[in-house]
């Protein structure tokens, strides 16, 4: 083929496998349970905050193994690149760190290195998009969403161009790098921009689907957010992914937990904790922050009467704000917000930081309990 094959994955070049075969090999997807409904509890997540008793005997999702959402992004990007020659990838030095190395190695003629210059990267992406390319630019979310915010606003969003922006290192789970590199405001900044779509997949598998959807099923700008730390990979491709369509992972009528990104798994764990207390929580994976799935939110408010939101992001402007905007306009119910409380992160082990800032299943469950305990003031349901 004249390209330098990726040393680890040479088969695509030698035996003519299709891109999907390649992806399948890549992940060694040997999942026994295609239907997520039949999964048994088999939590592998090293969550010290979860007593085992909460995870036994329930019908729950299976963690197929911890994997970073950035890896899913990189795989989705590669899959889209292999099938669509219009896809080009822009690198800002940290190619491997943000999941673009698979693409860069497999499709070097469509990988454009632009160095540590995020503002230029976004402008170049706009120029490529004007010419019919589908540029994907990924860097740390703090730099993608904030440093290049004006370029995103004017060159990309005002021109309504199909540029896919990957925001890596989302949340405090970035860990030891500390506050400067922990993206906690990116969703808020991106979701105020007209024309922008904002995606926040919950695990590596969904990140892969979300990335291909952002590339293949959008016409305008898309921001997709993902993390660095390996986290439970518990969804399946058969669950599908539709932009703007929230996924109800579990039904319940006592309250609803609406979570995004890494916090979705925590929400599932929290629902088990609540169930042990006799409380049936609905769990919604809000993988699309914009456009928000209003119908799912309104339905949850009407049917469960209480909502807890959970995100690895500032509650101000983030998922919590987005949900509250819908709730107050359509069906006001008591809410609680799990997320960063208007402060910066800090260095530490990812799990320690999640616990320090209350970004855990225990915090979600506690917030849910509190809403339930306050049920005397709630007669709206």
């Amino acid at each position, binding site marked *: 083929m004249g390209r330098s094959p990726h040393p680890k994955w040479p088969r695509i070049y030698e035996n003519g496998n299709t891109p999907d075969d390649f992806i399948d090999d890549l992940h060694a997807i040997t999942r026994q349970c295609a239907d997520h409904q039949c999964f048994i509890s088999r939590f592998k997540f090293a969550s010290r905050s979860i007593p085992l008793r909460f995870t036994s005997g329930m019908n729950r999702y299976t963690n197929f193994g911890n994997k970073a959402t950035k890896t899913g992004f990189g795989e989705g990007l590669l899959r889209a690149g292999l099938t669509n020659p219009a896809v080009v990838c822009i690198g800002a030095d940290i190619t491997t760190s943000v999941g673009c190395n698979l693409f860069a190695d497999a499709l070097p003629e469509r990988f454009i290195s632009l160095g540590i210059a995020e*503002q230029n990267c*976004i*402008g*170049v992406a706009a*120029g490529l998009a*004007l*010419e019919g*390319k589908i540029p994907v630019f990924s860097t740390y979310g703090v730099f993608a969403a904030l440093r290049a915010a004006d*370029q995103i606003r004017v060159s990309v969003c005002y*021109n309504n161009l199909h540029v896919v922006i990957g925001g890596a290192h989302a949340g405090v789970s970035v860990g030891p790098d500390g506050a400067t590199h922990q993206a906690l405001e990116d969703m808020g900044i991106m979701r105020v921009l007209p024309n922008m779509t904002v995606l926040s997949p919950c695990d590596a598998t969904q990140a892969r689907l979300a990335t291909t959807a952002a590339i293949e099923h959008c016409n305008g700008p898309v921001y997709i957010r993902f993390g660095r730390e390996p986290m439970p990979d518990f969804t399946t491709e058969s669950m599908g992914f539709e932009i703007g369509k929230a996924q109800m992972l579990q039904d319940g009528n006592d309250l609803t937990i609406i979570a995004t990104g890494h916090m979705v798994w925590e929400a599932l764990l929290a629902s088990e904790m609540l169930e042990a207390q006799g409380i049936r929580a609905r769990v919604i994976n809000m993988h699309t922050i914009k456009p928000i799935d209003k119908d799912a939110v309104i339905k949850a408010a009407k049917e469960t009467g209480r909502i807890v939101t959970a995100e690895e992001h500032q509650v101000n402007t983030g998922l919590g704000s987005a949900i509250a905007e819908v709730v107050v306009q359509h069906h006001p119910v008591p809410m609680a917000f799990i997320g960063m409380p208007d402060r910066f992160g800090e260095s530490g082990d990812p799990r320690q930081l999640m616990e320090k800032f209350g970004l855990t299943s225990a915090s979600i469950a506690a917030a849910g309990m509190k809403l339930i305990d306050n049920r005397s003031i709630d007669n709206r349901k």
Partner: protein
Amino acid sequence: MNILAAEAHNRLLGIAAEIRKSVVMSLLEAGSGHLGGSLGLADIFTALYFSELKHDPLHPAWAERDRLILSIGHVAPVLYAALAHAGYFPVDELLTLRKLGSRLQGHPGRDHGLPGIELSAGSLGQGLSVAVGMALAARMDHQDHRIYSIHGDGELQEGAIWEAAMAASHHQLDNLTAIVDRNGLQIDGSTEKVMHLEPLADKWKSFGWNVLTCDGHDFNDIIQAIRLAGTSENKPTVIIAKTIMGKGIPSIENDYRWHGKIPTPEMASNL
């Protein structure tokens, strides 16, 4: 050197005069806007749209057209006037500039559907990056059209310009021509007083660019530079065009206070 025959030269002089008149009339009607830079660029826009650009006003999206990115969106009046006189839309429409519902936004906006607008722009320092992206795409697709980007000299104080300059030379984008409107003035006064740019040519050279200079009001000089840029190999070209802000109205020429002011009715009648 005269590369234009007298007849061709006179034709361009006449068109430039019409464009200046249209700029003044549209700004007068609008009641706000940027006069000085628009007049200063009238000759360069005339040379581009009426001599050098490969374009078709009846088919604005023609794939093989040369692309012109106006990075300094505030001089939209001269772009609009050039497009209208070239036949992209009726000249009368210039009088809707900056009004509610107009396709002629204060700074160019593609969403309003004006034919011939390549990019919605207005925030300084962004256009060169977009031009770099277009030049990369053209090379990937083996297309031989050129990308032109128009910049102000004050705009060069934006750091993103130099990120883009680095990228253009790194990727050897010889299909890219940047034109700098070097009138030496910005809103607070002289560029050299506000934030000095000199030695400007050396700056571009050190970034790996092919650097040309021209008199931005001499058609032979402008066109010679544009054609020379087209022969550059492996290097992007910047044309530093020496211009006079407000050119055409002697009472305001070289006066930075006319950067963003509107003309008086007398000025219009004198053109």
